[in-house]
């Protein structure tokens, strides 16, 4: 296998809410208020090969968006490294780092919030390539037309404003904006979640077309397992900040190993499942402020052992290309 395009090594990201004035005063009188710390991402490692589509799934609060933002360079990791083409991004000089950031683009969930409402869409798409000197000023117009056409937008619409477009078309504008800087790696954070079903298929087809035409690499973050199954080569499943399973898509969907992945796949509503007797997994997703000790999933796990309550299982390769973090894999 060639060197991965992106490698994430032992990345953690904490968010700290410092104690406020009232709590400081309370502490002066002997209270024990501590800053609140959320381990949004806790020691996560994975690699993405060039041209690969990796799906990242999990429920709310599992840290999947934070992983996306750390990989994109929007957030710095609290610990660990993000490596782009084998080089630690944090150690690059500012010019090189800017280049890496340009090669990595992000597409967000809400195309109503991610576009500047006061900017004509031709400007929105053309601004970044012009600013970074990717395209000569006299060619910019033709270049924007070209990018818009590639994303299924009528180039004649480029003097319009975002509010004149529907949700699906706005998402095409966001994609065109991301593509305009000639990225190699796209991070899509719930990029089709806000779209209607009939529009969702159009956008997914666009992602697949662009992948084939431009040899793009994707990190596709979604809570929708049907979408991820369709698009991804490999899938990473996260639960409360940690990776619980990582496997090629077909194998994961055929035979998930981790009890959480099993539960998650069993709950996915499918059109072929009729009047099913839902047999839901028990319990709630715990608060990431105060996750359970040991394996985070043990309070809900039907197979939990005493060991699961004290010791967090490491993510291990249990078969070629298949990784899982579960103590059950140690017991034959």
């Amino acid at each position, binding site marked *: 296998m060639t060197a991965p395009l992106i490698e994430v090594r032992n990345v953690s990201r904490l968010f700290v809410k410092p104690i406020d004035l009232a709590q400081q005063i309370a502490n002066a009188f002997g209270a024990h208020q501590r800053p609140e710390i959320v381990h949004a991402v806790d020691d996560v490692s994975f690699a993405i090969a060039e041209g690969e589509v990796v799906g990242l799934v999990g*429920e*709310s609060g599992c840290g999947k968006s934070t992983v996306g933002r750390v990989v994109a360079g929007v957030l710095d990791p609290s610990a660990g490294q993000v490596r782009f083409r084998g080089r630690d991004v944090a150690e690059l000089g500012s010019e090189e780092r800017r280049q890496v950031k340009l090669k990595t683009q992000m597409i967000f969930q809400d195309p109503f919030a991610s576009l500047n409402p006061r900017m004509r869409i031709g400007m929105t798409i053309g601004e970044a390539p012009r600013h970074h000197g990717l395209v000569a000023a006299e060619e910019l117009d033709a270049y924007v037309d070209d990018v818009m056409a590639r994303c299924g937008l009528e180039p004649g619409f480029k003097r319009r404003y975002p509010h004149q477009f*529907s949700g*699906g*078309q706005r998402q095409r504008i966001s994609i065109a904006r991301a593509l305009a800087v000639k990225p190699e790696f796209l991070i899509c954070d719930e990029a089709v979640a806000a779209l*209607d*079903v*009939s*529009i*969702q*298929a*159009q956008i*997914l*087809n666009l992602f*697949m*077309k662009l992948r084939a035409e431009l040899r793009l690499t994707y990190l596709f973050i979604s*809570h929708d*397992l*049907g*979408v991820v*199954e*369709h*698009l991804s080569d490999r899938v990473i499943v996260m639960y409360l900040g940690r990776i619980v399973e990582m496997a090629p*898509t*077909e194998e994961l969907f055929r035979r998930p190993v981790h009890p959480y992945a099993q*539960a*998650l796949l*069993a*709950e*996915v*509503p*499918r*059109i*072929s*499942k*009729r*009047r*099913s*007797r*839902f*047999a*839901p*997994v028990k319990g*709630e*997703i715990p608060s990431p402020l105060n996750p359970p000790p040991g394996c985070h999933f043990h309070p809900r796990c039907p197979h939990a052992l005493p060991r699961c309550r004290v010791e967090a299982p490491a993510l291990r390769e249990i078969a070629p290309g298949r990784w899982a973090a579960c103590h059950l894999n140690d017991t034959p």
Partner: protein
Amino acid sequence: MAETLRVENLRTSFLTKWGEVTAVDDVSFSVDAGEILGIVGESGSGKTVTGFSILGLIDPPGRIKGGRILFQDEDLVGLPENRMREYRGKRIAMVFQDPMMTLNPVLRIDTQLIESVLAHDKVDRVTARQRARDALGQVGIPSPDERLASYPHQFSGGMRQRVAIAMALLHRPALIVADEPTTALDVTIQGQILFEVQKLCKESRTALIWISHDLSVVAGLADRVAVMYAGKLVEQGSVDDVLDRPMHPYTSGLIGSLPSNNIRGQPLRQIPGMTPSLLNLSAGCAFRTRCPRADAACLESPPVSVPASGREVRCAHPLVGGGS
């Protein structure tokens, strides 16, 4: 089977500054006791307005312009507000997408539940509290006695939605209208709520209208499905009929575009174009600009055909025998 609700030719419109928008246009369906009807449609298809119309929650500039809503043989359209109040919450209840729309953030759960009991029944507070407790237990909230004293913000999203459902159940209504109640929830939590809802409906013989954009959820939950597009009900029938043998090209296209119905990695079958604006709907079939089967006949209002009892399709060229 006893029919709980029959909607006939319902037409609800909103007067906007750009003209009158008919959000629900000539919609007819019925729900029996103990039955779950799924209403499926995309944003702007009129599914929520249909639900609101049943509960008499259409406020100006909107109004019900025509049709009848027969609830246990009494027409709810045009019922005076004080009479409607006797129904709402008592015999017809609603569950909304966002439970914070139902719950008051500054009151404890017990206050709110007891208030709902007393609004319709003359019982003492002890009995009311008991009923509130039982309702929480019914929807699977652990240790309901302690949880009664909590505020809404102390519950997670899934638990809040359970409280909202418990509130809907307090008076054992004959009909519950649920508008996207699990859309904001995580998959495993959604699974738990669908499980409880299905059990409750069958046990208490409550009729349930489940409004959703998600065909897959409806497939697993409902007995019958009605599909809406641009304010019109384009197809209805049993879940198996509609989802396995869709007759309307829109339903068929929608089912065909689901990733799980496509070969992995291959382009998805897609419906071209976009959902039309209700403001400038041209005459004839609203789907015709996106439809592969459209021809000159679709410029006329499409006819409704009833191929079998309980099965209905509004199309000039229905797919015969289904298939997509």
